[in-house]
């Protein structure tokens, strides 16, 4: 499903070159529940951005379903990103003015998909918010907002959900609930879920943990 070969990422600044990723090799199969752990500055967010086609590697090859991402144009990458990936962010990244239903519809707008309202409502049902369709973000709790953003990531029926510190802004109990929602996605929808976190508590929910340090994978093992 996902295949990284000798991926490097160098941020060039005037003062110095920052080697964010050094020769990363990684394979992730369909339906895996993976966590990427590391200290801040270890390169985990960079890795996630590259995985989600938001950023390009400086060197190396990245294949999704045998497609070489480096060879796509910006528009093709945007399209691929919209179709294959769902994103969940630490700070939810919801648009302040839109209702929960409209938030979830948003990715469908860019793919000209019909029956948007129905599909969005179904996605909100999966995360347990079918009774909050008309609420705007400021009327929802943190956990509910994160569920809306999970529903938004689900609505395009993605193969992969990328979650960047999804529990970072939540209390422990709500965080567990959100991880539970993600775990169900893997089980029930056969979606690959990749969670980036610095908390081992969170990583424990996943089946496989990849440890990053200083831009390199230092450990890659199954949990339990």
């Amino acid at each position, binding site marked *: 499903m996902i295949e990284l070969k000798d991926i490097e990422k160098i941020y060039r600044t005037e003062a110095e070159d920052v080697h964010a990723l050094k020769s990363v090799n990684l394979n992730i199969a369909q339906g895996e529940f993976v966590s990427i752990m590391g200290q801040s500055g270890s390169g985990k967010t960079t890795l996630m*951005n590259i995985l989600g086609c*938001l950023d390009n590697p400086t060197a190396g090859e990245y294949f999704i379903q045998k497609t070489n991402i480096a060879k796509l144009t910006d528009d093709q990458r945007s399209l691929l990103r919209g179709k294959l990936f769902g994103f969940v962010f630490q700070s939810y990244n919801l648009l302040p003015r839109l209702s929960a239903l409209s938030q979830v519809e*948003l990715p469908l707008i860019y793919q000209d998909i019909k029956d948007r309202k129905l599909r969005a409502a179904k996605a909100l049902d999966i995360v347990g918010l079918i009774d909050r369709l008309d609420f705007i973000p400021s009327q929802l709790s943190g956990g509910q907002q994160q569920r809306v953003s999970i529903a938004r990531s689900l609505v395009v029926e993605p193969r992969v959900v990328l979650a960047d510190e999804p529990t970072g802004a939540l209390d422990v109990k709500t965080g567990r609930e959100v991880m539970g929602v993600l775990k169900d996605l893997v089980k029930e929808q056969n979606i690959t879920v990749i969670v980036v976190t610095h908390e081992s508590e969170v990583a424990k929910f996943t089946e496989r943990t990849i440890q990053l340090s200083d831009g390199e994978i230092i450990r890659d093992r199954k949990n339990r």
Partner: protein
Amino acid sequence: MNLKDLVLVSLGAINANKLRSLLTTLGIIIGVSSVIILMAIGQGAVKGVIDELSALGTNLIFIEPGFSEQGGQRGGAGSALSLTREDGEVINDAQIEGISQVTSLFDFEAQAITSSNNIGVKMVGTEFMYSSIRGLIIDEGRFIDENDVEKKSLNIVLGHTIAQKLFPDDSPIGKNVRISIAGGRIIFNFRVVGVLGERGAAVGIDDDNAVYIPVSTLQARISFIRNPTGETNVNNIVIQTMDDADEDAIKRTITQILLERHNVSDPDFIIESQKDLIGAEQGIANILSLLLGGIAGISLAVGGIGVMNIMLVSVTERTREIGIRRAVGATKSDIVKQFVWEALTLSSLGGLIGILLGLSISFIIDGRISFDEFTVRTVIQPWSIVIAFMVSFMIGLLSGSYPAYRASRLDPILALRNE
């Protein structure tokens, strides 16, 4: 992204910032409405000029004396009036194709006196066809007729204002009016036979403030209007042409006749058709109209800069929104479309409101504002509405393009990290 979603997204953004959107469009509203109003005033002035000249009558050619600069048969010092009643008669007798009537007139300042009033008038010596050539309206009685001219009668026709001033209470018909000229050295008693209807100010002779007597009476009674050859000087020869006449050809023929008659090689007279006068005045009024439109166009451009400014601010403010949209699958061109559409919506809305406002104000001020004798009239030209809307649309496109381009260039990762 389809059109319906584009419209909804841009309306949503405008709705979320109502006050700001209103202030932004205000620049366009003021610009567009002032373009429409000022163009309407300019076109109103053009129409006013045409109306005024048309009020002189239709299909007219005017001949006025010029000053001969070469010593001809009658040239003398080269400053004598060079147009005579006999010139008019010769033109009439020439039977030039396309000419329907020829008349001459002589006018000078005089005093009109009754037992209770004494006012300054313009006294015009003329013939019976003058009335039909200028399209004069008779309120009471009749105009000078053939009989008057033949008999050199002492009958007089009063302009509307003169009649009201001299005889405020009763009909002037049959009453006597004394006309004093040359500072009272010559005084005649005239009998009023007609009163003209109100005309309003017009180019050339102010008919309301004129009195008309037979030109033959002037010739017979006032010696100083005759020049040394015994012909009668006139101020104007007025020629009415037929509707389909070739005025240029007529002007050439008349010029030829008069040059021969006056025995000069360069014209010692000025010959102009009404169309020449209208054309010249219309040219001036059109330039005025363009100038006004240009000034208003500047305010429209300023409005456009306002839209661009707000769109740039909006892009900066909504960096995060752009990042989110990119993350969920928006392409660069989706982002460009969104912001261009937003700018287009703002400026077109402004344009529409501006057009409505401009039209309303143009209708309201039409004929209601006056400076001295000049009354502001407005004439709406359909093309000025089309141009105003197209310009505001173009402004939206131009002022939206750069901010939209900036928005699309944002790095989605950085945009998402933006707090």
